[in-house]
């Protein structure tokens, strides 16, 4: 699956460029078409479980819908108040509706791009690529990697602490305030053990000769191949292409300080 084999840094660069371009465009059709293209590409070029994909997509849908709704509800006074469309029984000025739709699709297209990156990129490769190509300090990069291993451990430990406190006689917290107080109590043992673990990991890393210095060799060389650049160009060309099509049909609009 070619998306998985791309250089993570170039992939990230591509996504960033596309997001910037999308931010300059302000019509509903261009981001909508580009979102469709991104989703199709994700499934064609990546080995992805569609259930997982939908699950990740749901929160973005909620946000997009919220934006749609609030933009319509709190829109400026429209320039052409007579052009209205009927939306579930309400008359909404067409202009505000288009603005809202543009915003919502912008959110979704950015979400689709982010998911494309997240779901097809190996964390270790990404971090190694950051060190090798973007010259990120190994001290920070390997630190992040070690921390990444900690997350599931902390989750398990939180569950243990919670049951340990229950045995001591804490009941299930009912109100939000009680819950907050309980989490404050969990945080002390959790922090104590996390700090200890982090210290041990740091000691183990240093004992293996890790100094955080930039001179080191690499077991895995992350390469940049012509196909990475091809991906970058192809993605940008397709966004430009879509923009051209929507311009031809008279939909295209630059972002002009709306909202």
């Amino acid at each position: 699956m070619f998306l998985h084999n791309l250089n993570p840094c170039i992939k990230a660069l591509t996504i960033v460029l596309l997001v910037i371009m999308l931010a300059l465009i302000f019509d509903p059709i261009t981001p909508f078409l580009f979102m469709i293209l991104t989703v199709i590409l994700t499934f064609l070029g990546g080995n992805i479980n569609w259930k997982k994909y939908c699950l990740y997509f749901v929160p973005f849908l909620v946000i997009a819908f919220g934006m749609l709704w609030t933009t319509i509800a709190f829109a400026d006074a429209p320039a052409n108040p007579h052009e209205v469309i009927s939306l579930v029984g309400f008359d909404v000025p067409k202009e505000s509706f288009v603005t809202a739709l543009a915003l919502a699709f912008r959110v979704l297209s950015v979400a689709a791009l982010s998911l494309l990156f997240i779901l097809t990129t190996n964390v270790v490769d990404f971090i190694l690529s950051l060190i090798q190509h973007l010259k990120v300090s190994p001290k920070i990069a390997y630190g992040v990697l070690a921390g990444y291993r900690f997350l599931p451990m902390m989750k398990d430990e939180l569950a243990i602490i919670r049951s340990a406190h229950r045995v001591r006689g804490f009941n299930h917290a009912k109100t939000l305030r009680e819950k907050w107080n309980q989490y404050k109590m969990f945080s002390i043992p959790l922090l104590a053990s996390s700090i200890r673990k982090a210290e041990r990991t740091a000691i183990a890393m240093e004992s293996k000769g890790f100094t955080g210095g930039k001179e080191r060799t690499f077991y895995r060389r992350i390469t940049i191949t012509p196909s990475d650049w091809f991906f970058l160009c192809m993605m940008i060309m397709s966004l430009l292409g879509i923009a051209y099509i929507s311009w031809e049909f008279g939909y295209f609009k630059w972002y002009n300080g709306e909202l």
Partner: protein
Amino acid sequence: MKKALLHVQQLRLRFENQLDKDILSNIDFELKKGETVLLLGPSGCGKSTLTFCLNGLYPRELDGTITGDVFINGKQSTDYKPGELSRHVGVVFQDPETQFCMLTVEDEIAFGLENLNVPQQLMEEKIDNALSLVNMSAFKESAINSLSGGQKQKLALACILAMEPDLLILDEPTANLDPVATKELVATIENLKRQQEFSLIVIEHQLDGWMELVDRTLLLNKNGELFFDGSFRNGIKHILPCLREQGIWLPKVTQYVLQQDGLNEDFIPLTIGEFANQSHYWQQPICNTAPQKKRNVEEFLEINDISWVKNNNTIIQNVSANFYKGEFVAIVGANGSGKTSLSRLLAGIQKPTSGTIQLNGKPLDDWKEETLRDEIGYVFQNPEHQFVTNSVYEEVAFSLHLKRMNTREINKQVSSILKVCQLSELENEHPYSLSQGQKRRLSVATMIVDQQHMLILDEPTFGQDTQSTMELMKLLWERHKQGTTIVMITHDMEIVHHYAERVIVINNGEIVADCNPNELWKQPKVTLNAWQLDYPIQVQLQQICKKDTCYVSTQP
């Protein structure tokens, strides 16, 4: 004579927060090339601190003061550049979970090589070599979190071996492993020692298995002083009371032999093998001290065909058992076999997916949380998880406060429990500032203050030195005599043998044996090993004696 690889001179170290107390005090010793040394001492005597001094982490990362010198290969440790010393000194630490920073086995081994700037084309071969040395070649591409504790420790060892150090330090490498994984790791090291020349410092609590390997022993005391440097046998012969006072573990076989009458001072066996060679000294069949079993008929907890499924994995499968009032039960089995899960189900911390648990004839679900806690106390593996207040006194008084008991009554009860647990003088300390052994006793204290009828403990002797273990077992034994039902998860077969009236063996989530320990020891070795268990020392010795008598009697 071989050249000294390591030379420590007048080493003295203090931490910044305790500038008036020596952590290490005037340490002087030498280590020759290829030598194996055992470093022993009670918990908190500065063994790990010494390790950091040897691998160059201190003084670089030290908040405190250090005087004296450490020479490695004739060069002072402070003259090495940061990271350079890892070519000479490699350390395997205690906790298998926190020694790694990568996600897969090969990447982790590569990490060390990368730090040493090993060219990429040589790495693959070194990684394969290191993995084959520890018999882990099949796991080259595995994710680290899919490995067992024993495998993780072998990986940690492989990471260090790939870097080809002259001195290997093992800092309590088996403390978190079950007996079979421990044996395997020791065997791996023994094998390595035969194949390659390197010096080895082993820091351990659990001595069994290591004794055949070591040339010399260094003993540290509570003040961080090196008080013995020589063969362990001589140490036992000359300063035994001192060893006992410092809470230093002896090999189990030695411990056992020392308890016998008619001790032959000239020859004290340190290993089972030595005992076997000398077993005619100990002709009289060794008597069995396992407690008398009487089964109380009064049922307390009844579990009926329970199963527990987590993330589609069956952790506990169709388990049925009854627990009676006043029993002392040990739950044993391999790491990951479901011991902890079962104990949590028993305590009502987790609900079984199917099946029922009844306490005094009433289903566990029908018990209110507060009344259930009056019946069953549960001591977690890490005592810190259970601490909820800021002082030892408050910690014990906490559940009494919850019951709105009056202050006088609370005071009385807390004082008596603290006394039983030998924590009276520490009542104003913060629970986190206690030593490991004290923390453990405090966690037990909080669970017995309400006179609970049943106490469930998850590996309570884990990582403790002899003295704390003995104090804890004494405490539990007292409770047991007063009628408390004790259910204890443990890896320590000696404890099972000496204290338990009943032992439950868990394998892959099922109960495979539920009997008196003596019955369990009658199982053949293959069966026990399949369950990741071993015979207690006493039974092993009996077996040796029996074999000898058979051998003698068949002679014409």
